């Protein structure tokens, strides 16, 4: 008996308002070939199920008799800092996960009843995901539908293709949110079922692209051209990251590229860096996190004006 096809998902978000037109439900898939330091969903990067700890939910080791520490076969959980409970004002003894010892076995999550410790990532069969999405169809108004995002969702191509086929059969609008860093054959296979690509352009200079994200940009640009040649539609997304790609020169080059595939571009989104994702890093690692000051509204408006100068339909956010 062959193993049933499953996809690894770390979140499903209804009333997703930032991921394509209309009212959408976005499926976030795990695993990404890029490692952008500004990533606001760090839990999306690794494909493996990852031990996460949300301090807000932790009731303190006194309340649960340190069940997690006792359950850990690797002795990877130790006492950490204390936290003041916002409602009672009491100090709660928190834990700390020694990441070098933890192997994400998940034993501690089984005894953490408030689910402060949990494994991030869940395997869904096609049927389970599709049936849930179809149930939400009455809400997909205003050109809305389903967005498959990530991580890089196209790193799980067979699963995504099967989901797309079934959603299309149910006449649901589909958007694919992608880094573009995948083999053309994969994009080609899903193209017939995809109404819109949410397509990231992070930097026009391949070396700088590689230095920051770990991969060069040639394949990404090449795939964008091919999508355009094959009649696909793209909503270009440019994360505006201070000290990386925010300079006018890069933005102009990006605009020029967009102009070169103009017929395929429905919208250019300028997404200002924000630091709301910083706390998410703390759930899965101890490593220092990039923190920068978000670009000012004034600066974002300047970049928007540049896009408009090139005759591109653009917006901030």
């Amino acid at each position, binding site marked *: 008996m062959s193993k049933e096809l499953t996809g690894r998902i770390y979140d*499903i*978000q*209804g*009333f997703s*308002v*930032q991921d394509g*037109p*209309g*009212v959408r*439900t976005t499926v976030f898939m795990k695993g990404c070939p890029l490692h952008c330091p500004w990533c606001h969903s760090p839990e999306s990067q690794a494909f493996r199920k990852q031990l996460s700890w949300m301090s807000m*939910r932790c*009731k303190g080791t006194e*309340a*649960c008799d340190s069940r997690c520490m006792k359950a850990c076969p690797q002795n990877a959980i130790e006492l950490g800092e204390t936290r003041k409970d916002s*409602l009672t004002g009491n100090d709660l003894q928190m834990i700390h996960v020694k990441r070098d010892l933890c192997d994400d076995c998940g034993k501690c999550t089984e005894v*953490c*009843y*408030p*689910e402060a410790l949990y494994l991030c990532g869940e395997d869904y069969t096609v049927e389970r995901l599709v049936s849930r999405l179809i*149930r*939400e169809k*009455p*809400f997909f*108004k*205003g050109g*809305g539908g389903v967005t498959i995002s990530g991580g890089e969702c196209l790193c799980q191509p067979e699963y995504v293709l099967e989901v797309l086929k079934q959603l299309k059969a149910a006449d649901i609008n589909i958007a694919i949110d992608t880094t573009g860093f995948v083999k053309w054959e994969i994009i080609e296979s899903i193209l017939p079922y995809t109404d819109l690509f949410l397509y990231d352009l992070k930097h026009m200079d391949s070396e700088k692209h590689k230095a920051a994200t770990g991969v060069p940009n040639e394949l990404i640009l090449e795939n964008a051209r091919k999508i355009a040649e094959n009649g696909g539609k793209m909503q270009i997304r440019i994360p505006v990251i201070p000290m990386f790609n925010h300079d006018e020169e890069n933005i102009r080059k990006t605009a020029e590229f967009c102009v070169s595939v103009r017929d395929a571009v429905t919208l250019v989104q300028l997404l200002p860096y924000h630091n709301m994702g910083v706390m998410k890093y703390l759930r899965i690692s101890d490593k220092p996190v990039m923190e920068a000051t978000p670009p000012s509204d004034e600066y974002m408006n300047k970049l928007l004006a540049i896009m408009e100068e090139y005759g591109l339909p653009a*917006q901030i*956010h």
Partner: protein
Amino acid sequence: MYQKAPITDRVKRIREKCRNTKPSLDISRYRLVTEFYMANPQLTGILKRAKNLRNLFENLPVVINEDELIVGWQGKKYRSSALYPEVSWKWFMDELRINYIRTRSVDPYEIDEEDEKYLLETGDFWLKNNMSAISDEYLPRPLQDKLDQSGVIFFNKSDNAVAPVGHFVANFWTATQKGFGAIAQEARDKMTYMEEHGIFGEDVQKYHFYRAVEIVSEGIIIWSKRYAAEAKRQADECADPARKAELLEMADTLDWIMEHPCRNFHDALQCIYLYQLAMCLDAQLHGISFGRMDQYLGRYYEKDIADGTLTPEKAQELVDMFFLKLMELNKIWSEEATKSNPGYTCGTLITLGGVDMEGRDATNPVTYMFLQSSARMSLNVPQALRVHEGTPADLWEAAVETTKVCGGIPTFESDIAIIPAMMRRGVPLEYARNYCLHGCVEPGIGGYEWAQPGGNGTQSYINIVNAMLMAFNNGIGTMKVPGQPANTKIQGPETGYLYEMESMDEVLEAVKKQFYFWMPWHANCTNTWESIAAFHSPLPMVSATFAGCMESGKDVMWGGAMFNSTGNSCIGVGNVAESLNVIDQVCFRKKWATTRELYDALMNNWEGYEELRQRIVGQLPHFGNADPDCDKYMTFAANTYADSINQCVGPRGNHYAAGCYPVTLNVVFGYFTGATPDGRKQGEPLTDGISPVQAMDKNGPICTMQSLLTFDYGAYGNGTLCNMKFHPTSLAAKDGISKLVNVMKSYFEQGGMELQLNIISGDTLRDAQAHPENYRDLVVRVAGFSAYFVEVFKDSQDDLIRRTEMAL
């Protein structure tokens, strides 16, 4: 494209004055009523009430404040509360005697020392001579002992009915278009006819009624003309020619309206305000609502604009001024009752939009003007917007923009669900289409249906969580008073103990038995109260315009209205649903604990069972996340409650109508509710309306809505309330509003009844708690009405913050 226009300088001045004036007590009404009642012990029933009101019309001070265009007040002092000793009094004297009024924790009131002295000297006259004390005497026998302090129904052996009927909407069409001159004449004609042909048989009651209508109709005309004289007096003394002209115009309006049909928009707004105030003087301010204001004002506005006698800007200023008069209105409650309705508000709900009696979209320019006034002044005047398939996109946008500024204003009410719910209680289609919202969220046909949706005002809520807990404890309440032995008094049916139950069917059967016992007892008590109130406190001022009353010769309280109904609201349906699911999962499916262990956990308020409690809270699915098991028990809880109350019949011959809206009573009732299987500890808040258990709607608004759609709204003729809080970021994008509107549309198309939105962040609220001085203008919808967040008491603030931020 939606735009907010700036307010005029004088609107700004009045608004500041209103926000900066600390509410105080005004004894003008009290003094007149006390003197009248002391001097007239021979008067009883409807004639006493009519003559008492007439005395107020003739002798209350008439006050026209600087800058005002719309006038009328219940006393002398600005933003003051009148006192209504003939309704209920003991709580007031208790608070007055311990000098608590000025210092209490919620809604304190200023009071002059001299007035206080007068109240202390005369107050004892009212202690037993008020509606509350009188109706206590008549309560059914079991209230005296067995059912007292049950924690399920809120009738006890004494101190019931501290608020009057309230929650009604008069017929403002008749008031504006017919006038009280014609109504008084109609009453006189009826009496003359009877005098000539015999006041025989049951007609004698009609004769009394018409006599009362004549007295109050003449009275309200006198009152209006006294205001006209005051406007004229001020005009004569006014040096500023512009203000002088205004005062003369006001005098003209006040001299004309009430007696005659209104001629224009200004006439109509002034007439509506004075009539509303008159009903408050008679019946006490308590959720007395305005109904479909855009509908009965629209024609005047359109005519004036066509005639060139009014500009949109001038009309908008008039509406602003009208709103500021509503903001002035407030009523002192007992401290306990105030906790459920904090923020100096009184629930004068306005209904906008919807379809007309033929089913066409009824939006008109006035609809937009009302939303505009709320938004541009950031005022918590409660408004409900009826929406349907044909609601214009511009109106949706204006409504969401308004709710962004004034959290929860307007509420969104779906014609698709509510019109059939009205019809299910016997209202024909064309009238059902004319429904409005009363008080909080209760639908009724304003001016046609005596809906009494709030029952007697205070005892209209049922704590179904305590009823459920009795099912697990052989009819004994589980609430434990610290330091005292466990309660042993059997009050409900003896349905056995949870640890004796061997299947979910047995559990459900026990819950059902409790519900079918307690709901009729609620109705028995409400009916007893109403039968006494109908004699002692009929309402001829309302009845004068109410469809059906003049025809039948009966007061609304006697069943004279064209349609009749009685409302009810349950509290805690979410806790009941979750608790039943937890019992099923924990005791019968997953077997984490036996029924004995769970029972012991509840009786010990979870002490010693923390592990089990955490597991229940953290690992079981909860209502509001589209989980089919959970939703199944929501259907059971909602239907069992609705069926058991809807079968009951009131004294006007109508069936009761189920509802589910808590104001902030879910917090107050929580104090008196034992621990529940869903992991809630004794004293913690209950669920808010049909909204999911606080902080348990993890999967976002669409899953929540799917769960809410498991409700049979047709059975909830008295309305439901669902609060959804959205973080502002979910609306930040260009098309954010249209996306939100689309979600609401989808919900309503699938049968959803009501939604209200709070688009604010938890951080904002926390900061507002810490620095109230910076957030004086932050309007928050507190379940069923809006209040200024900083004026809401702390537990309710915490409750608001805890509610999941949907978009995060």
